[in-house]
Protein backbone atom coordinates (compact mmCIF):
# COMPACT_ATOMS: atom_id res chain seq x y z
CA UNK A 1 0.00 0.00 0.00
CA UNK A 2 0.92 3.55 -0.61
CA UNK A 3 0.76 6.66 1.61
CA UNK A 4 -1.47 9.56 0.69
CA UNK A 5 0.28 12.69 -0.53
CA UNK A 6 2.03 14.93 1.96
CA UNK A 7 4.56 17.73 2.03
CA UNK A 8 7.97 16.90 3.40
CA UNK A 9 10.17 19.18 5.43
CA UNK A 10 13.58 18.42 6.79
CA UNK A 11 14.58 21.08 9.34
CA UNK A 12 18.23 21.57 10.18
CA UNK A 13 17.77 22.84 13.73
CA UNK A 14 15.42 22.24 16.62
CA UNK A 15 14.20 25.82 16.44
CA UNK A 16 13.43 25.46 12.76
CA UNK A 17 11.61 22.22 13.44
CA UNK A 18 9.45 23.87 16.06
CA UNK A 19 8.67 26.77 13.75
CA UNK A 20 7.69 24.32 11.03
CA UNK A 21 5.48 22.45 13.45
CA UNK A 22 3.78 25.61 14.56
CA UNK A 23 3.24 26.71 10.97
CA UNK A 24 1.87 23.36 9.90
CA UNK A 25 -0.78 23.26 12.61
CA UNK A 26 -2.40 20.13 13.92
CA UNK A 27 -2.18 18.34 10.60
CA UNK A 28 1.55 17.77 10.77
CA UNK A 29 3.32 14.62 11.88
CA UNK A 30 6.84 14.36 13.13
CA UNK A 31 8.91 11.71 11.37
CA UNK A 32 11.60 10.20 13.56
CA UNK A 33 12.62 6.68 12.52
CA UNK A 34 9.28 6.14 10.86
CA UNK A 35 9.03 2.49 11.81
CA UNK A 36 5.52 2.90 13.19
CA UNK A 37 4.54 6.00 11.26
CA UNK A 38 5.34 4.82 7.74
CA UNK A 39 3.30 1.59 8.02
CA UNK A 40 0.46 3.70 9.46
CA UNK A 41 0.72 6.07 6.49
CA UNK A 42 0.82 3.14 4.08
CA UNK A 43 -2.33 1.71 5.59
CA UNK A 44 -3.81 5.21 5.32
CA UNK A 45 -4.75 5.11 8.96
CA UNK A 46 -3.28 8.59 9.07
CA UNK A 47 -2.91 11.14 6.28
CA UNK A 48 -1.03 14.19 7.59
CA UNK A 49 -0.55 17.07 5.20
CA UNK A 50 3.02 17.68 6.33
CA UNK A 51 5.75 15.36 7.51
CA UNK A 52 8.59 16.96 9.45
CA UNK A 53 11.64 14.73 9.32
CA UNK A 54 14.03 15.13 12.25
CA UNK A 55 16.81 13.07 10.73
CA UNK A 56 19.06 16.08 10.17
CA UNK A 57 18.98 17.04 13.85
CA UNK A 58 22.15 15.23 14.80
CA UNK A 59 22.14 16.96 18.20
CA UNK A 60 19.23 14.69 19.13
CA UNK A 61 21.30 11.57 18.60
CA UNK A 62 23.38 9.74 21.16
CA UNK A 63 23.67 9.00 24.84
CA UNK A 64 25.45 11.42 27.17
CA UNK A 65 26.61 11.15 30.75
CA UNK A 66 24.97 13.88 32.80
CA UNK A 67 26.11 13.15 36.34
CA UNK A 68 23.40 11.22 38.13
CA UNK A 69 21.55 10.65 34.90
CA UNK A 70 21.95 9.66 31.30
CA UNK A 71 20.65 11.95 28.61
CA UNK A 72 19.38 9.95 25.69
CA UNK A 73 18.67 11.88 22.54
CA UNK A 74 15.24 11.30 21.10
CA UNK A 75 16.65 10.40 17.68
CA UNK A 76 19.01 7.76 19.06
CA UNK A 77 18.14 4.51 17.30
CA UNK A 78 17.33 1.33 19.17
CA UNK A 79 20.44 -0.15 17.61
CA UNK A 80 22.56 2.63 19.09
CA UNK A 81 20.93 2.21 22.49
CA UNK A 82 21.64 -1.52 22.36
CA UNK A 83 25.31 -0.85 21.77
CA UNK A 84 25.85 2.07 24.12
CA UNK A 85 28.19 1.35 27.02
CA UNK A 86 26.57 3.98 29.23
CA UNK A 87 23.21 2.29 28.81
CA UNK A 88 24.81 -1.06 29.60
CA UNK A 89 26.35 0.30 32.74
CA UNK A 90 23.67 2.59 34.12
CA UNK A 91 20.38 1.56 32.53
CA UNK A 92 20.42 -2.22 32.08
CA UNK A 93 16.65 -2.30 32.09
CA UNK A 94 16.48 -0.09 29.04
CA UNK A 95 19.06 -2.23 27.32
CA UNK A 96 17.11 -5.39 28.10
CA UNK A 97 13.83 -3.98 26.81
CA UNK A 98 15.39 -2.47 23.69
CA UNK A 99 16.75 -5.87 22.72
CA UNK A 100 13.19 -7.12 22.37
CA UNK A 101 11.84 -4.27 20.24
CA UNK A 102 10.54 -5.49 16.86
CA UNK A 103 13.36 -6.91 14.74
CA UNK A 104 16.91 -5.95 13.74
CA UNK A 105 15.94 -3.94 10.67
CA UNK A 106 13.40 -1.92 12.63
CA UNK A 107 15.92 -1.37 15.42
CA UNK A 108 18.32 0.11 12.88
CA UNK A 109 15.81 2.82 11.96
CA UNK A 110 13.44 3.12 14.88
CA UNK A 111 14.28 5.68 17.55
CA UNK A 112 14.03 5.85 21.30
CA UNK A 113 12.15 9.12 21.30
CA UNK A 114 9.90 8.07 18.44
CA UNK A 115 8.74 5.03 20.38
CA UNK A 116 7.96 7.11 23.44
CA UNK A 117 6.15 9.83 21.53
CA UNK A 118 4.14 7.19 19.64
CA UNK A 119 2.96 6.11 23.10
CA UNK A 120 1.59 2.70 22.26
CA UNK A 121 1.14 1.04 25.67
CA UNK A 122 2.10 -2.26 24.02
CA UNK A 123 5.47 -0.74 23.08
CA UNK A 124 8.41 -2.11 25.01
CA UNK A 125 10.21 1.07 26.06
CA UNK A 126 7.41 2.84 27.89
CA UNK A 127 7.26 0.66 30.99
CA UNK A 128 11.04 0.80 31.60
CA UNK A 129 11.07 4.56 31.12
CA UNK A 130 8.20 4.89 33.57
CA UNK A 131 9.73 2.51 36.06
CA UNK A 132 13.07 4.32 35.94
CA UNK A 133 11.44 7.70 36.71
CA UNK A 134 12.79 9.17 33.50
CA UNK A 135 12.09 12.76 32.62
CA UNK A 136 11.13 14.01 29.16
CA UNK A 137 12.84 17.12 27.95
CA UNK A 138 10.51 18.89 25.58
CA UNK A 139 10.93 21.94 23.39
CA UNK A 140 8.17 24.16 22.09
CA UNK A 141 7.56 27.70 20.91
CA UNK A 142 7.73 28.92 24.51
CA UNK A 143 11.02 27.24 25.31
CA UNK A 144 11.86 24.04 27.11
CA UNK A 145 10.08 22.16 29.80
CA UNK A 146 10.55 18.89 31.63
CA UNK A 147 7.81 16.33 32.15
CA UNK A 148 8.22 13.24 34.32
CA UNK A 149 7.36 9.98 32.59
CA UNK A 150 4.47 9.46 34.99
CA UNK A 151 2.81 12.57 33.53
CA UNK A 152 4.02 12.12 29.96
CA UNK A 153 1.93 9.10 29.03
CA UNK A 154 -1.68 10.25 29.00
CA UNK A 155 -3.64 7.65 27.06
CA UNK A 156 -3.41 5.36 24.02
CA UNK A 157 -1.12 7.14 21.56
CA UNK A 158 -1.46 10.31 23.59
CA UNK A 159 1.31 12.11 25.45
CA UNK A 160 1.76 15.41 27.20
CA UNK A 161 3.39 16.74 24.01
CA UNK A 162 1.47 19.63 22.48
CA UNK A 163 1.12 19.55 18.69
CA UNK A 164 3.85 22.16 18.36
CA UNK A 165 6.27 20.51 20.78
CA UNK A 166 9.14 18.13 20.22
CA UNK A 167 10.65 15.53 22.48
CA UNK A 168 14.38 16.30 22.54
CA UNK A 169 15.99 14.14 25.18
CA UNK A 170 15.10 11.72 27.90
CA UNK A 171 16.85 12.01 31.24
CA UNK A 172 17.19 8.58 32.74
CA UNK A 173 18.44 8.44 36.36
CA UNK A 174 21.36 6.06 36.66
CA UNK A 175 20.75 2.72 38.27
CA UNK A 176 24.37 1.62 38.32
CA UNK A 177 24.88 -1.83 39.70
CA UNK A 178 21.20 -2.65 39.76
CA UNK A 179 19.90 -5.93 38.46
CA UNK A 180 17.39 -5.61 35.66
CA UNK A 181 15.26 -7.73 33.43
CA UNK A 182 12.51 -7.30 30.87
CA UNK A 183 10.20 -10.32 30.71
CA UNK A 184 7.93 -10.37 27.69
CA UNK A 185 5.29 -12.74 26.45
CA UNK A 186 4.19 -12.51 22.87
CA UNK A 187 2.76 -14.98 20.40
CA UNK A 188 5.50 -14.73 17.81
CA UNK A 189 8.86 -12.99 17.98
CA UNK A 190 7.70 -10.01 15.94
CA UNK A 191 4.40 -9.56 17.73
CA UNK A 192 3.71 -6.91 20.31
CA UNK A 193 3.69 -7.95 23.94
CA UNK A 194 0.54 -9.47 25.32
CA UNK A 195 2.01 -8.39 28.63
CA UNK A 196 5.58 -7.61 29.63
CA UNK A 197 7.17 -6.66 32.91
CA UNK A 198 10.15 -4.38 33.36
CA UNK A 199 11.93 -4.87 36.65
CA UNK A 200 15.02 -3.28 38.14
CA UNK A 201 16.23 -3.98 41.67
CA UNK A 202 19.07 -2.88 43.84
CA UNK A 203 20.26 -5.60 46.15
CA UNK A 204 22.57 -4.88 49.02
CA UNK A 205 23.73 -7.42 51.55
CA UNK A 206 21.17 -9.93 50.36
CA UNK A 207 18.30 -7.51 50.82
CA UNK A 208 16.35 -5.52 48.26
CA UNK A 209 17.01 -1.86 48.88
CA UNK A 210 15.22 -0.37 45.88
CA UNK A 211 12.85 -1.77 43.30
CA UNK A 212 11.24 -0.43 40.15
CA UNK A 213 8.58 -2.35 38.25
CA UNK A 214 6.67 -1.26 35.16
CA UNK A 215 4.03 -3.12 33.17
CA UNK A 216 3.63 -3.13 29.40
CA UNK A 217 0.18 -3.40 27.83
CA UNK A 218 -1.76 -3.52 31.06
CA UNK A 219 -3.75 -0.39 30.37
CA UNK A 220 -4.02 2.63 28.10
CA UNK A 221 -0.62 3.78 29.34
CA UNK A 222 2.33 1.94 30.84
CA UNK A 223 1.63 1.11 34.46
CA UNK A 224 3.87 1.36 37.49
CA UNK A 225 3.47 -1.64 39.81
CA UNK A 226 3.87 0.33 43.03
CA UNK A 227 2.40 -2.39 45.21
CA UNK A 228 5.11 -4.77 44.08
CA UNK A 229 7.84 -2.21 44.63
CA UNK A 230 6.57 -1.40 48.12
CA UNK A 231 6.33 -5.07 48.98
CA UNK A 232 9.90 -5.71 47.89
CA UNK A 233 11.85 -2.95 49.57
CA UNK A 234 13.50 -4.15 52.72
CA UNK A 235 12.82 -7.80 51.94
CA UNK A 236 15.51 -10.43 51.46
CA UNK A 237 16.11 -11.26 47.78
CA UNK A 238 14.59 -14.69 48.14
CA UNK A 239 12.14 -16.55 45.90
CA UNK A 240 9.53 -16.38 48.64
CA UNK A 241 9.72 -12.62 48.98
CA UNK A 242 9.79 -12.12 45.22
CA UNK A 243 6.82 -14.37 44.62
CA UNK A 244 4.81 -12.77 47.36
CA UNK A 245 5.49 -9.34 45.93
CA UNK A 246 4.81 -10.46 42.35
CA UNK A 247 1.36 -11.61 43.42
CA UNK A 248 0.48 -7.94 43.69
CA UNK A 249 1.54 -7.05 40.13
CA UNK A 250 -1.95 -6.55 38.76
CA UNK A 251 -3.10 -4.36 41.64
CA UNK A 252 -4.28 -1.03 40.41
CA UNK A 253 -4.55 -2.12 36.79
CA UNK A 254 -7.91 -2.05 35.10
CA UNK A 255 -7.69 -4.23 32.01
CA UNK A 256 -10.42 -6.49 33.36
CA UNK A 257 -8.81 -9.54 31.82
CA UNK A 258 -7.93 -12.37 34.17
CA UNK A 259 -5.44 -13.85 31.73
CA UNK A 260 -3.46 -10.64 31.42
CA UNK A 261 -3.62 -10.11 35.16
CA UNK A 262 -2.24 -13.60 35.62
CA UNK A 263 0.53 -12.85 33.13
CA UNK A 264 1.41 -9.68 34.99
CA UNK A 265 1.89 -11.69 38.17
CA UNK A 266 3.75 -14.61 36.58
CA UNK A 267 5.99 -12.47 34.40
CA UNK A 268 6.65 -10.11 37.28
CA UNK A 269 7.91 -13.02 39.36
CA UNK A 270 10.15 -14.15 36.54
CA UNK A 271 11.41 -10.65 35.78
CA UNK A 272 12.32 -10.06 39.42
CA UNK A 273 13.94 -13.46 39.75
CA UNK A 274 16.13 -12.74 36.76
CA UNK A 275 16.81 -9.21 37.94
CA UNK A 276 18.10 -10.20 41.35
CA UNK A 277 20.44 -12.74 39.79
CA UNK A 278 21.50 -10.49 36.91
Amino acid sequence: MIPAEFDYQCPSSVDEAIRMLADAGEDAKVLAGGQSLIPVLRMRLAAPSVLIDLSALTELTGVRDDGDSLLIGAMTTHYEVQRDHLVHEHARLLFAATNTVADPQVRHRGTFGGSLAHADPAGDLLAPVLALDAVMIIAGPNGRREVPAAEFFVDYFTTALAPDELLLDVRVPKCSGWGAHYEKLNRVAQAWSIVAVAAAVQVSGGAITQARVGLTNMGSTPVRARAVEDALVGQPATPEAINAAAERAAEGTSVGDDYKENLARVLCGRALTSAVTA
Partner: protein
Amino acid sequence: MHISVNVDGVRHADEVEPRMLLVHYLRERLGKTGTVVGCDTSNCGACTVHLDGHSVKSCSVLAVQANGHDITTIEGLARDGKLHPVQEAFHANHALQCGFCTPGMIMQAIDLIADDPSPDDEAVRKGLEGNLCRCTGYQNIVRAVQDAAHRMRPGAGPDAERVQDEARAHHVVGGE
Protein backbone atom coordinates in the same frame (compact mmCIF):
# COMPACT_ATOMS: atom_id res chain seq x y z
CA MET B 1 11.74 16.75 -4.22
CA HIS B 2 15.26 16.26 -5.45
CA ILE B 3 17.31 13.39 -4.07
CA SER B 4 20.71 11.97 -4.70
CA VAL B 5 21.28 8.38 -3.72
CA ASN B 6 24.10 5.95 -4.24
CA VAL B 7 22.61 2.59 -5.13
CA ASP B 8 24.84 -0.43 -5.59
CA GLY B 9 27.77 1.82 -6.28
CA VAL B 10 26.02 4.08 -8.78
CA ARG B 11 24.93 7.63 -7.95
CA HIS B 12 21.40 8.50 -8.99
CA ALA B 13 19.84 11.96 -8.93
CA ASP B 14 16.07 12.12 -9.23
CA GLU B 15 12.94 14.08 -8.55
CA VAL B 16 10.55 12.04 -6.38
CA GLU B 17 7.27 12.59 -4.62
CA PRO B 18 7.90 12.82 -0.86
CA ARG B 19 5.56 9.89 -0.29
CA MET B 20 7.45 7.52 -2.58
CA LEU B 21 8.73 4.53 -0.64
CA LEU B 22 12.36 3.64 -1.08
CA VAL B 23 11.41 0.20 -2.37
CA HIS B 24 9.25 1.73 -5.08
CA TYR B 25 12.03 4.12 -6.00
CA LEU B 26 14.37 1.17 -6.41
CA ARG B 27 11.89 -0.92 -8.35
CA GLU B 28 9.96 1.57 -10.44
CA ARG B 29 12.53 4.30 -11.02
CA LEU B 30 15.81 2.46 -11.07
CA GLY B 31 14.50 -0.88 -12.36
CA LYS B 32 16.09 -2.64 -9.41
CA THR B 33 13.35 -5.25 -9.23
CA GLY B 34 15.47 -7.69 -7.27
CA THR B 35 14.15 -6.02 -4.13
CA VAL B 36 10.51 -6.94 -3.65
CA VAL B 37 7.49 -5.91 -1.59
CA GLY B 38 5.73 -8.57 0.46
CA CYS B 39 3.60 -6.68 2.95
CA ASP B 40 2.31 -3.32 4.14
CA THR B 41 3.34 -3.44 7.77
CA SER B 42 7.09 -4.10 7.71
CA ASN B 43 6.62 -7.66 8.95
CA CYS B 44 7.90 -9.78 6.07
CA GLY B 45 11.32 -8.28 5.47
CA ALA B 46 11.31 -9.19 1.76
CA CYS B 47 12.27 -5.60 0.93
CA THR B 48 15.37 -5.55 3.14
CA VAL B 49 18.30 -3.55 1.76
CA HIS B 50 21.29 -1.94 3.40
CA LEU B 51 21.32 1.76 4.15
CA ASP B 52 24.84 2.92 4.95
CA GLY B 53 25.74 -0.68 5.67
CA HIS B 54 22.84 -1.55 7.99
CA SER B 55 19.79 -3.59 7.10
CA VAL B 56 16.52 -1.68 6.79
CA LYS B 57 13.12 -2.45 5.38
CA SER B 58 12.89 -0.35 2.25
CA CYS B 59 9.09 -0.37 2.45
CA SER B 60 9.34 1.61 5.69
CA VAL B 61 11.81 4.19 4.47
CA LEU B 62 10.84 7.07 2.21
CA ALA B 63 12.98 7.63 -0.83
CA VAL B 64 13.57 11.19 0.41
CA GLN B 65 15.02 9.77 3.63
CA ALA B 66 17.65 7.99 1.56
CA ASN B 67 18.85 11.30 0.16
CA GLY B 68 22.62 11.45 0.48
CA HIS B 69 22.95 7.87 1.65
CA ASP B 70 24.35 4.63 0.26
CA ILE B 71 21.98 1.80 -0.55
CA THR B 72 23.03 -1.76 -1.29
CA THR B 73 20.51 -4.18 -2.75
CA ILE B 74 20.65 -7.86 -3.58
CA GLU B 75 21.71 -6.80 -7.07
CA GLY B 76 24.80 -5.07 -5.77
CA LEU B 77 26.29 -8.03 -3.90
CA ALA B 78 27.92 -10.06 -6.62
CA ARG B 79 31.24 -8.64 -7.75
CA ASP B 80 32.61 -9.29 -11.20
CA GLY B 81 30.39 -12.32 -11.59
CA LYS B 82 31.44 -13.72 -8.24
CA LEU B 83 28.64 -14.31 -5.78
CA HIS B 84 28.73 -12.99 -2.24
CA PRO B 85 29.48 -15.83 0.21
CA VAL B 86 25.97 -15.56 1.63
CA GLN B 87 24.50 -15.97 -1.83
CA GLU B 88 26.72 -18.99 -2.38
CA ALA B 89 25.69 -20.48 0.93
CA PHE B 90 21.99 -20.05 0.20
CA HIS B 91 22.48 -21.99 -3.02
CA ALA B 92 24.70 -24.65 -1.49
CA ASN B 93 22.31 -25.32 1.38
CA HIS B 94 19.05 -25.24 -0.58
CA ALA B 95 17.94 -22.32 1.55
CA LEU B 96 15.32 -21.12 -0.90
CA GLN B 97 12.35 -22.52 -2.74
CA CYS B 98 10.12 -19.93 -4.38
CA GLY B 99 12.84 -17.38 -3.70
CA PHE B 100 10.60 -14.39 -3.05
CA CYS B 101 11.88 -13.84 0.48
CA THR B 102 15.45 -14.64 -0.56
CA PRO B 103 16.78 -11.16 -1.39
CA GLY B 104 15.62 -9.86 1.97
CA MET B 105 16.86 -12.95 3.80
CA ILE B 106 20.29 -12.65 2.22
CA MET B 107 20.56 -8.94 2.98
CA GLN B 108 19.54 -9.52 6.59
CA ALA B 109 21.84 -12.52 6.91
CA ILE B 110 24.80 -10.36 5.83
CA ASP B 111 23.89 -7.83 8.49
CA LEU B 112 23.51 -10.54 11.08
CA ILE B 113 26.91 -12.03 10.33
CA ALA B 114 28.48 -8.58 10.46
CA ASP B 115 27.19 -8.22 14.03
CA ASP B 116 27.92 -11.79 15.05
CA PRO B 117 30.56 -13.56 12.96
CA SER B 118 29.81 -17.02 14.35
CA PRO B 119 26.17 -17.13 15.33
CA ASP B 120 24.70 -20.24 16.87
CA ASP B 121 21.33 -21.62 15.81
CA GLU B 122 19.41 -19.40 18.21
CA ALA B 123 21.30 -16.27 17.25
CA VAL B 124 20.56 -16.88 13.57
CA ARG B 125 16.89 -17.44 14.25
CA LYS B 126 16.67 -14.33 16.39
CA GLY B 127 18.58 -12.31 13.83
CA LEU B 128 16.11 -13.30 11.14
CA GLU B 129 12.98 -12.63 13.18
CA GLY B 130 12.05 -9.77 10.89
CA ASN B 131 12.03 -11.89 7.74
CA LEU B 132 9.26 -14.29 6.82
CA CYS B 133 9.61 -17.31 4.56
CA ARG B 134 6.63 -19.50 3.74
CA CYS B 135 8.47 -22.29 1.89
CA THR B 136 11.50 -23.56 3.76
CA GLY B 137 10.51 -23.82 7.42
CA TYR B 138 13.78 -21.86 7.87
CA GLN B 139 15.81 -24.99 8.56
CA ASN B 140 18.07 -24.65 5.55
CA ILE B 141 18.18 -20.88 5.86
CA VAL B 142 19.62 -21.24 9.35
CA ARG B 143 22.13 -23.74 8.03
CA ALA B 144 23.04 -21.48 5.14
CA VAL B 145 23.68 -18.49 7.39
CA GLN B 146 25.95 -20.52 9.61
CA ASP B 147 27.71 -21.93 6.58
CA ALA B 148 28.12 -18.42 5.19
CA ALA B 149 29.50 -17.16 8.49
CA HIS B 150 32.02 -19.95 8.32
CA ARG B 151 32.94 -19.03 4.74
CA MET B 152 33.30 -15.37 5.64
CA ARG B 153 35.44 -15.47 8.72
CA PRO B 154 36.89 -13.29 10.14
CA GLY B 155 33.80 -11.27 9.32
CA ALA B 156 31.78 -9.39 6.82
CA GLY B 157 30.37 -5.98 7.28
CA PRO B 158 29.82 -2.67 5.66
CA ASP B 159 33.39 -2.80 4.37
CA ALA B 160 32.72 -5.97 2.43
CA GLU B 161 30.12 -4.09 0.46
CA ARG B 162 32.08 -1.00 -0.32
CA VAL B 163 32.64 -0.83 -4.00
CA GLN B 164 36.33 -1.42 -4.42
CA ASP B 165 36.66 -0.05 -7.85
CA GLU B 166 35.54 3.56 -7.72
CA ALA B 167 35.90 3.74 -11.46
CA ARG B 168 32.87 1.50 -11.76
CA ALA B 169 30.71 4.11 -10.15
CA HIS B 170 29.55 6.79 -12.47
CA HIS B 171 27.13 9.60 -12.17
CA VAL B 172 23.67 8.96 -13.48
CA VAL B 173 21.09 11.69 -13.74
CA GLY B 174 17.44 10.67 -13.80
CA GLY B 175 17.49 7.00 -13.16
CA GLU B 176 14.74 6.12 -15.56
